[in-house]
């Protein structure tokens, strides 16, 4: 016979963590069963922000789905643009001019930088530190201005096109980007590392907390900084190179501690690597067209196509099934945060509530990308 919840003898209780409001962007609900302050069971509940993006792709033509891609991961929108362009270009056999590939890499890496900067700011806000957010937004604003110059928008970019990019970058963008990298490098040791990374409160809250073992990470299909923080050297940019990434010299930061601090450090190191890629790309930027001649309505040959890219949160895969018509037969997305979140239930068992929140922050969740 099951005992009703109100009569349970073990003194556990259920606490709903979120959602704050259905119209906010980060609407994740976690149903927590708590024993005092310790988590007995955690159950993430998804679906509050499901918008049927995959279904929408089926009744639009290929180009018309482009704006949707940026609405999934609003923090690394350009990588979603890139992933979708890549799979359609593979399907239709479109060659991208070299200059366009370089511009794509530069803008995607800038976008990755601000994604990590915003994660850093929001994560520290979760931990109760407000000041770093202001420094982070100061830096982020610089990149947003730069990207606004070339893309015309500040958050949900729709900049890439099949066979290239919407428009060319100018000299002011190039000098601005060099200046920003110089500025961020000078601020990194103080505003980021001295103020936060070395801070005793942060260390105490992250070290040894939220351990995702390598085995767990593989089992749940974690990718991106979560996997690299668990000692798995896996980065699509290196393992399945796409675009012009093989031409750049950069490292993949890997930490073996498996805790929240390891994931934090992976992202901090990745910011430096992104800056290295941008500098190299700007130095080597070739001349030429930024867009290939592509018919307005694409009709790729029948087939099953796959392309994956590395977003700020991990491996984003697009599977495209075509039946020779002007719209996709099926577009399936493999989003990184969904897999990264799925380990939350197992790992957070027995954790203090406050630690679980720090752990959740270290996963870098972007909910619209989980639900799509």
């Amino acid at each position, binding site marked *: 016979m099951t005992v009703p919840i109100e009569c349970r003898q073990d003194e556990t209780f259920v606490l709903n963590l979120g959602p704050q409001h259905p119209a906010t962007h980060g609407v994740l609900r976690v149903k927590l069963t708590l024993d005092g302050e310790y988590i007995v069971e955690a159950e993430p509940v998804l679906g509050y922000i499901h918008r049927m993006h995959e279904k929408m792709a089926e009744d639009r033509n290929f180009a018309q*789905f*482009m*704006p949707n891609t940026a609405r999934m991961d609003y923090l690394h929108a350009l990588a979603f643009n890139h992933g979708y362009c890549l799979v359609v270009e593979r399907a239709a056999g479109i060659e991208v001019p070299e200059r366009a590939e370089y511009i794509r890499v530069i803008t995607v890496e800038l976008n990755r930088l601000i994604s990590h900067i915003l994660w850093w700011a929001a994560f520290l806000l979760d931990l109760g530190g407000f000041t770093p957010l202001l420094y982070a937004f100061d830096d982020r604003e610089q990149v947003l201005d730069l990207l*606004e110059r070339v893309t*015309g928008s500040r958050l949900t970019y729709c900049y890439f096109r099949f066979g290239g990019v*919407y428009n060319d970058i100018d000299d002011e963008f190039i000098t601005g980007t060099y200046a920003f990298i110089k500025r961020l490098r000078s601020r990194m040791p103080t*505003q980021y590392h001295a103020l936060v990374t070395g801070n005793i409160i942060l260390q105490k809250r992250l070290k040894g907390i939220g351990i995702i073992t390598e085995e767990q990470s593989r089992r749940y299909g974690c990718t991106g900084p979560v996997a690299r923080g668990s000692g798995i050297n896996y980065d699509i940019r290196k393992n399945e190179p796409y675009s012009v990434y093989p031409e750049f010299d950069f490292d993949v930061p890997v930490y073996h501690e498996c805790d929240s601090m390891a994931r934090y450090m992976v992202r901090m190191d990745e910011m430096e690597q992104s800056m290295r890629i941008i500098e190299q790309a700007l130095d080597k930027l070739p001349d030429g067209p930024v867009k290939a001649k592509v018919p307005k309505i694409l009709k790729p040959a029948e087939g099953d196509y796959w392309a994956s890219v590395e977003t700020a949160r991990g491996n984003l895969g697009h599977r495209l099934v075509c039946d020779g018509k002007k719209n996709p037969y099926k577009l399936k997305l493999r989003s990184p945060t969904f897999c990264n979140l799925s380990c939350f239930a197992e790992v957070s068992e027995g954790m203090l509530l406050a630690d679980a929140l720090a752990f959740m922050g270290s996963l870098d969740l972007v909910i619209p990308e989980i639900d799509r």
Partner: protein
Amino acid sequence: MSEYWNDVIGGSKSLLIGLSITAREFFKPVVTEQYPWVVPEMTERFRGHIELIKDEKTGKPKCIVCGMCMRGCPSGCISLAGKKPEGEKKKALTKYHLDFTTCSLCGTCIESCNFGAIQFSKDYNLASTRKEDYIFDLLKRLEEQG
């Protein structure tokens, strides 16, 4: 016990570093935009809602009512109509409505226009409490601009 003293020393060190950085930032110039007093200028490529372009020679919109923007739009937010004035060969635009509530500023309409008849505007002060305020009559807007 030694751990306790390590925490005390480490904590005071973190505090001093934090305070020194804050103090340095305190004397730096203000970085925020003083918005209502200083109005930011939008960049050349800023994507506001679309607007019609006037043909300088005739003083009328460049649009030839082909409907490519309407068909290209992913969200179907453009609706237009035109008719041939008596004695003329070309169609003239009589209605061009943009439903900005569903527009995602992707620029597909501008790309699909072969006559360079539409462009992004620089308007960003568009707050309103009524949905109807976002159905823009772009033809009327062009006439008002003079």
